[in-house]
């Protein structure tokens, strides 16, 4: 099903998505007692990068040139598939979340290839970590989804979220809380946030996402940064739809509530980043598998409740 009004809202979300990293950084600055960069900083960065011209390494091939477009397309089309502002997604059909996850997967695949294309040891390191962590995170996402499908008897994301009301939460609070926590962890993993990865680190040996795009510059980097912000918005709205419901509200109220909820998610990410230290790399897989375990516990609770 194609829903034109949602496509417009979705475009709005895409345009506003660079605000989310700004809000996260503001929150972190608040905890650190600093003033911090302006909320619009990512827009400034992107504008600056778009004016510059690229430098490519001599070892790179066409993969490095194509990858930014694949990454951007994957993030934008994922945004089209996720329910926004408590309404159905721009495009919704049976199994849309599978397409969503795999579209993000192709973006990641090309980012890894682009990292290997430079022939650098650091970027190879980041690529190796990225593929492992994302492979472990995906089962958690799908396990949680399974409980939601069972609860609502629907197979498309929009229909699931439409049926998922406060009543469901009241009936099985623990189940949904576990899924929310598990999906929050997936959000942190997929968007390379603390405690899995540190977007601000300056030590290449410990980086994951940032080190993979080390050799990108100018317009390509702008596209990748923008795609990263959109991806964060996609996962945030997935989480917002799970926790809040506002089907009955009017459109203006829905938009306001959605904006507030997205801000809340960004603030929570900021609080997590300010209060938790980054894990040692050896412990990260355990943490991610833990989020899968939470989703499995939710599934068992659901099974015993049936």
């Amino acid at each position, binding site marked *: 099903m194609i829903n034109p009004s949602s496509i417009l809202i979705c475009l709005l979300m895409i345009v506003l998505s660079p605000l989310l990293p700004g809000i996260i950084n503001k929150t972190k600055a608040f905890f650190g007692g600093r003033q911090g960069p302006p909320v619009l900083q990512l827009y400034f960065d992107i504008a600056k990068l778009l004016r510059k011209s690229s430098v*490519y390494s001599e070892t790179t091939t066409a993969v490095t040139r194509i990858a930014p477009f694949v990454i951007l397309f994957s993030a934008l089309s994922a945004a089209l598939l996720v329910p926004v502002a408590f309404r159905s997604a721009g495009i919704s059909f049976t199994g849309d979340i599978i397409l969503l996850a795999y579209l993000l997967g192709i973006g990641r695949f090309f980012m890894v290839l682009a990292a*290997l294309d430079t022939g650098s040891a650091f970027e190879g390191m980041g690529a190796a970590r990225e593929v492992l962590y994302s492979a472990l995170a995906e089962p958690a996402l799908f396990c949680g989804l399974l409980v939601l499908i*069972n609860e609502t008897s629907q197979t498309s994301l929009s229909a699931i979220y439409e049926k998922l009301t406060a009543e469901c939460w009241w009936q099985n609070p623990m189940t949904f809380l576990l899924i929310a926590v598990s999906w929050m962890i997936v959000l942190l993993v997929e968007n390379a946030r603390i405690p899995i990865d540190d977007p601000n680190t300056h030590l290449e040996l410990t980086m994951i996402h940032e080190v993979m795009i080390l050799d990108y510059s100018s317009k390509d980097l702008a596209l990748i940064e923008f795609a990263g912000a959109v991806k964060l918005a996609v996962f945030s709205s997935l989480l917002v739809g799970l926790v809040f419901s506002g089907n009955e509200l009017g459109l203006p109220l829905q938009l306001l509530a959605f904006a507030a909820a997205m801000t809340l998610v960004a603030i929570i990410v900021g609080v997590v980043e300010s209060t938790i230290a980054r894990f040692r790399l050896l412990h990260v897989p355990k943490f991610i598998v833990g989020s899968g375990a939470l989703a499995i516990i939710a599934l068992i609770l659901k099974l015993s409740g049936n």
Partner: protein
Amino acid sequence: MLANYWQMPLQEQTMQQFIIAITLITVGGILAFITRKNRDVSTIVGAGSAIIGSLIAAVPVARVLFSSAELPLLLLNLPLGEATLKLDAVSAFFSLPILALFPAVALYNAACSKHDRHTHDNCWLLLNMLAAAMLLLLASANALTFLIAWELMSVAAFFLIVWRDEIASARSAAWQFLIASHVGTAALMLLFALLSVQSGSLEFARFAAMYMPAGFETTAFLLAVFGFGVKVGLLPLHVWLPDSYTFADAPVSAILSGAMSKMGFYGLLRVLMLLPLPRESWGWLLVVGGLLTGIFALIMALAQSDIKKVVSYSSMENAGIILMAIGCSLLAMSWKQPEIAGIAMAGALLHILNHAVCKGLLFMGTGAIYWGTGTRRLELMGGLAGKMPFTAVCFALASVAIAGLPPFNSFISEFIIFIAGLKAAISNDPQALLLAAAMLSGLALIGGLAAATFARTFGLVFLGAARHDKKHEMQDISPALRLPFIFLLICMGALIVAAPWLLSPIMRVSWLIMARQTGFALVDLSEAALWQPVGLVVAFSLTMIVLVLAGWQLRRKFFSAGERSDRPTWDCGYAAPDARMQYTSSSFSQTIVDIFSPVVRPYKHGEKVSGLFPQHASFRTDTPDSLLRYLFVPLFGLIDRILLPLRGLQHGRLHLYICYVAITLLALLVWKVVAI
């Protein structure tokens, strides 16, 4: 038989056409063998008969699949009685991988035979025999012809694997194949013997109609899973697979993995068509077995440093996915859920087709890489994309496809299997929810690991700086050798674009598989439920291809002012990056392999670096199949020791052997007399 061909009704003519194709391929192989001294003639005869034979066979196959024509039985008079041949929709579907890969492989072989001094003289004979045996296998509706074709197929495959018999490990790989394949065939013989004793006939049609006592059908199913599981590479029975595919010639590996191992699925489904309604436990066996197969295969693939082994293990992974989908379908059949059963089976069938095409491309790609570099070791490659752009593009497309990522064909079939899982999750039955959990999270994990495997393979072979000897002259494959790649790329494109239209014939095939036992009607399978999702996925895929290419070209044409690409990799300011500083294939997968090291048990050889200014250090990891090492080698050693005393019976004296025959006959005579 052929005398009054043109007077026959169209239906019979089509069936005859299929037999003519098989005959043509066989005769072509034999003629190529006879003319082997003149290599050009032999190539033309062999490849020509392969391609023309496949084209002729494609007509009846297309008629059966698309116009749902019912072809009549064909009776053959064999010494042991009559045998029937029949081409129904299931057989027709399973001949598609053969008809796609066989011409491609023939083209590849023909283009290669000029350059490759290793090409052996009887390769056309064996290759054509393999294909003809597979087509005969698909057409046989009789246990005896089925087993004969099965054996012909295995023997041809054995001789194709052992083509480089001067290499000890190639010989041992071929022996492993032969032993595994015969252990499997033994189970199949037992299975068909049981069925024919019970029904008093060797015809499949009679098997289906007979009464089965309690427990009989489970025994039959387990024998079938064992016998056919060996061919597809089900978890503990897969040990022959990686080595055989590695040591066979690249096009041979393509047809072994893409077509021959698919015959295992055909056999399994054919036997399921003959048995009564599946039990729940059968489905669970396949789901759990498939899941473990898939995950184990990918972890092993990540630990390998031989490119063909990586691709071989990925065949096993895809077999795991297909087995999971078939298992899900069996479970849904036993729960009387026609919608899920139909979707899961359709997903499995489509995945078989998609995997055949992608794996053909990948294996032929490894052949091209070997042609260019002269090695199969991932550690010695890197930066091939600049030297071999055509191979790089083919391998990249096939890698993305085999990792099950959009916008390529394997994603569509995995997506359909996922939908079966999603539909199972709606049910309130705890078992169904458990099935959905196994399918969804299992497929997600397999998908993630497959992406890791192929990002590693493509990235470390084609991208980065070259690790091989710079002096080694390297060039891309010759234009003639590109033809089979282009052919398979076209097949791949067709499988993406035509996916929504393929649903209807595939749904009919899956209905045929389950119609008799379950009594489902074709409409129950609700093919319509798949149209919208699959259509949208295809639309997304095509949009993605167009937009990404358009964006790239626009950026290159209009927004590339002032760009430069003449500097070494920046890498945070490394002064003199070197190809040897790059991440290697084993370092790339080390974190993943370490997590699963209790399962894969990698060997690590190396010396500790100590002291200041160490002069020399080396490190090597090696990961042979852990099940082979810890299960089969000890098991076969034990069997060997137990059977050692019997070796006295085998002394080589002919007159005593004749005596054995006489004693056996006498014992049988006595038994017969006493029994009466």
